[in-house]
């Protein structure tokens, strides 16, 4: 790979495959701990499967799965992203300075996903312990079947928010179009204010935790029919 020694990787000159190979095998050992990716131009699968405490700046727009399955790395996208940014993230941080398409942070087990703009539908679907902060709005069916972790929405939330939630908790500052099955609005406790405050402080967003509402599972779907003693 001709530009191994360079901090900047230009995707007009190298393929995504070469980029990822470099990020998997050479960064953090012989190479710098900060990498800049130029001309992403909406390409898919940029910086997926990273497992090193490095900083990656993506200068432009990314396609699907940017930062997928990230561990440890801090990835900053100076643009918008396509579907499923930071899907199945385990740890580290992914920051999107623009907007995110559908399924942002899907099934993320850990780490922080920060979207400065808005996120489309199903943001935080199947979330498993990661934290997501959205500076703008989220689309319909966000946090669908989310199991653990937090989704903080500074704007409005679309229809069917938190449908079939498990133990994940959603905080919304703006309007909620409608709640999904088994999701309910609950009073904010001091613990909630602290959680929201901590997540907001990590992102630098200027909002008061006191402005947020809490949405969590009513837990009526945890068992099908207790009275029937599971005779179904």
């Amino acid at each position, binding site marked *: 790979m001709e530009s191994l020694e360079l901090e900047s990787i230009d995707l007009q000159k190298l393929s995504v495959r070469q980029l990822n190979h470099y990020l998997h095998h050479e960064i953090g050992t012989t190479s710098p701990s900060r990498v800049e990716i130029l001309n992403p131009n909406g390409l898919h*699968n940029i910086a*997926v*499967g990273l497992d090193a405490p490095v900083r990656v700046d993506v200068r432009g727009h990314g396609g699907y799965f940017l930062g997928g399955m990230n561990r440890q790395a801090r990835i900053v996208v100076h643009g918008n992203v396509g579907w499923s940014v930071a899907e199945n993230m385990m740890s580290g941080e992914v920051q999107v300075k623009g907007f995110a398409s559908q399924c942002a942070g899907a*099934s993320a087990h850990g780490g922080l996903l920060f979207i400065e703009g808005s996120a489309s539908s199903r943001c935080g*679907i199947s979330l498993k312990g990661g934290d997501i902060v959205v500076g703008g709005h989220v689309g319909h069916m966000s946090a669908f079947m989310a*199991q653990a972790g937090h989704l903080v929405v500074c704007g409005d939330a679309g229809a069917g928010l938190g449908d079939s939630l*498990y133990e994940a908790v959603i905080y919304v500052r703006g309007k909620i179009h409608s709640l999904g099955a088994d999701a309910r609005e609950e009073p904010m406790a001091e613990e909630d204010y602290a959680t929201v405050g901590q997540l907001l402080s990590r992102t630098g967003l200027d909002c008061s935790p006191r402005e947020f509402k809490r949405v969590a599972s009513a837990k009526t779907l*945890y068992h*099908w029919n207790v009275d029937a003693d599971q*005779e179904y």
Partner: protein
Amino acid sequence: MTKKIDLEESFLYDRHVLEYIHRASEHGLYDIRGLGAKRRVPNFDDLVFLTASASRYPLEGYREKCLTRTVLGTRRAKKPITLDIPITIAGMSFGSLSANVKEAIGRAASEVGTSTTTGDGGMTQEERASSKTLVYQCLPSRYGFNPQDLKQADAIEMVIGQGAKPGGGGMLLGLKVSPRVAQMRTLPEGIDQRSACRHPDWTGPDDLTIKINELREITDWQIPIYVKLGATRVRDDVKLAVKAGADVVVVDGMQGGTAATQQVFIEHAGIPTLPAVRQAVEALDEMDVLGEVQLVVSGGIRTGADVAKALALGADAVSLGQAVLMALGCNSPSYFDGQEQVDVSDEYAKLGTGPGYCHHCQTGLCPVGVTTQIPELEKRLQPDWGARRLKNYLQTLTMELTTLARACGKSNVHHLEREDLVALTVEAAAMAKLPLAGTDWIPGDPPKRES
């Protein structure tokens, strides 16, 4: 005087249907159960081999070699999987099965040189340690799915559907969501868990192409990627899987089993394995990727004859689920406690069933310790004993497979071909597009012209 019609059972509302309606009326809930379809559908028993005679030359059954080596994932992976036999173990979750069972399966598979597969619930360390070749499933639920385990896998199976419930997600009732299972799945202990039926991060086949590439990128294009389909619109689905970049397509017919799902799914969704294989092979042929993309077939494979017939129809390998559990003692009247067989007929009776009929995997109260998370029951299936039983079973299947292949004159089981088969019923002939035995008639084919 009682007339015969006074005691005549209705065809439309027979005792099964009456019981179903009465039960539904009482509870207002559908039935959930384990295992696969109980109804009879056209299957491999409806085919027979035209073994060698004067017009074909057989191989000596005990002296001449018949190769069984099988290679999967040759299309794009740098490290395809090489197996000693074309019989693999299907994905079954830790959660539906105990850790002891997963270990026994891994050990048996490794001993006979084949692969085993994780399931909905992630990879256990016991399973990884005991399995020489382990296929890691990527399921819609993504329970326990993580890049560390992904990088330890020998292949990835993207699960789109399952033969027992194509279009539906998995279920694990609360009794089986033990502390360890709950922790692996990031769920509260003891809840009735419903797996998603759609993947969270992609939807259509175009997305799947990108998703498969993501998995390849993360694993540096080293290991094969399978796509597993529940058999419904097989021809279209296989083509889409191939186009999306699958190295291996797994087609699971409606006889395929499950840990738990709605009975209406098990009996009324999907098509039988027999036509599914034929359609899958035709799809691969039409895409001109026969031999390049391998086909694995599952759903009701029980015997060496079933394996041989699937291979003759064009499969590269088969995958077994329910039969593996049965080899481990599922539906047996007793379990082995290390010294003697212990009868558990009374425990089947408490479940309202008996050995030979049980499908109560969903309860977690398996009397022989196979589909359970209850420690006292789990102990009933010890990995040593289970591994030995399963190894014997897989060995038997392989011997039967090679026996039939040799009798057809083949020195390699992968040389079995459609021409070696005929059908015993019109339905099977139509579904497999094989001639009805003793005729040259293939239902649905245009009549041959007299020359």
